């Protein structure tokens, strides 16, 4: 059965970063919509001007608002795209039949990632991201950073431990600074809306971007998940292993979506 997959990229990336998966899913007979969040990929906004999830998520919200009632999609969220997805699931729970979190960041309702000190520490202590991160201060040095970035030579270690030099070259051309001020914004989500959407979590056990200990904390505290799948790979394992990943997400869709309009229990 053909599904409609909507893909939410992680920080610094864009719709482009899903190109291999889009190709495979379309060939397997599914509809796929990868979205550029604001200031990402080919979206024209300057990430340094984005401070709220309302601004950052706008392209995805606009898309969901225009999706006709009765149509449902499978949401696939990677990395920081997890935070965007919390809001999308809360706002559009009737339009999402399954969420697949992929090494994705999730925080508690009403608790911004920045204020979630335990998770923040697990994510940013003693790891490549902490070591190499560079901040831009377009609002003045006395104000908080407006975006964060990683110098090109550090990209392989920070993001692409599984990827080949060709893929890394492509990423080095297309990555853009991430509007880090959104991380200070809480997202409100509820059992009544967000909680109605079944979700699964795919963990990457050799992840150098979102450390496994942070993923462990997330799956333990921010579920429930219908299933937790552990894959022996780095943060972008779905690039070199795109065929396995395609099979996994389509199998998950088949397993947890029981016909149109129904939610699995």
């Amino acid at each position, binding site marked *: 059965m053909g599904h409609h997959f909507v893909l939410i990229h992680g920080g610094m990336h864009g719709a482009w970063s899903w190109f291999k998966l889009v190709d495979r899913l379309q060939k397997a007979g599914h509809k796929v919509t990868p979205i550029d969040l604001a200031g990402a990929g*080919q979206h*024209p*906004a300057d990430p340094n001007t984005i401070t709220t999830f309302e601004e950052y998520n706008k392209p995805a919200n606009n898309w969901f608002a225009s999706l006709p009632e009765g149509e449902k999609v499978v949401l696939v969220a990677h990395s920081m795209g997890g935070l965007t997805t919390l809001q999308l699931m809360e706002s559009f729970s009737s339009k999402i039949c399954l969420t697949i979190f992929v090494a994705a960041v999730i925080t508690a309702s009403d608790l911004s990632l920045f204020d979630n000190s335990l998770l923040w520490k697990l994510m940013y202590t003693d790891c490549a991201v902490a070591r190499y991160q560079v901040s831009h201060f377009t609002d003045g040095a006395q104000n908080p950073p407006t975006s964060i970035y990683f110098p090109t030579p550090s990209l392989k270690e920070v993001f692409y431990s599984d990827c080949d030099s060709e893929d890394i*070259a492509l990423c080095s*051309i*297309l990555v*853009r600074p991430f509007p880090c001020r959104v991380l200070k914004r809480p997202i409100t989500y509820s059992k009544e809306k967000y909680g109605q959407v079944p979700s699964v979590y795919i963990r990457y056990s050799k992840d150098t971007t979102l450390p496994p200990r942070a993923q462990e904390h997330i799956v333990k505290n921010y579920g429930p998940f219908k299933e937790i799948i552990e894959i022996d790979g780095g943060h972008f394992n779905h690039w070199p292993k795109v065929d396995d990943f395609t099979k996994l997400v389509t199998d998950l869709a088949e397993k947890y979506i029981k016909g149109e309009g129904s939610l699995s229990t």
Partner: protein
Amino acid sequence: MGRTQHFVLVHGAQHGAWCWYKTKALLESAGHRVSAPDLTSAGISAVNADDVKSFDHYNQPLYDVFESLGETEKVILVGHSYGGVPVARVTELYSRKIHVAVYIAGCMLCTEQPMSEVWPQVFDEFVNDMRFNFGRGAGTSPTSGWIVEETARRTYFGSCSPKDVQLGMMLLRPSPFMSDDATTFTEKGYHSVPRVYIKASLDLCLKPKFQDLFIQRNRPQEVRSIEAGHALQLCAAKELHRHLLQIAAAHVPDHGDEIQFS
């Protein structure tokens, strides 16, 4: 280990720096430096094609690369498709900074010839498959244009792998129409820089007969050919890489057999 060379790669219409990802990876693995700018309104540029004010505005990111070069630094300049037109402009403006200019399935026009004189002929087969924006209002000349999806897929990405077709189709953008892209070639400027033309013999976008016409009317020093479709940097990246290294070896003085052929 060969001496590091600096390659400057110029993408074509609707494309962006992204199209050079394989060439960039190969050249950097071989120890060379690569600059591949997004021209204004291309790739991840924040500017809309309809807001590109002039050819100079379009080329600014390329001019910035040349402005940032060291006093004695010279580059190997490579242009694909319409990218041959910016290549000709910077060859005229920065001739002392260029070892050799390489046109890959490129528009290698004559002196003072704008692209607008040439493109309807060259793209005659699919001029009906193009769409336009009229940013200055109806009744004015178009401000940007693009090729419709099916034709773009077939002509831009013929011979490409499915994932590269997908990547390309996701990242193509409208191209600005600029009336001032003609360059006057001088002996001291444009003509002082050796040129090499690399043909794509299976090209469905810029057909081989038009590539031959460019070569005939404005003879380069050397012509090479690769049996592949229009986007040689995507569908024949390794072969293109070998050609680029050979061209560099032939045109960089005192380089000789130092260059690494990997």
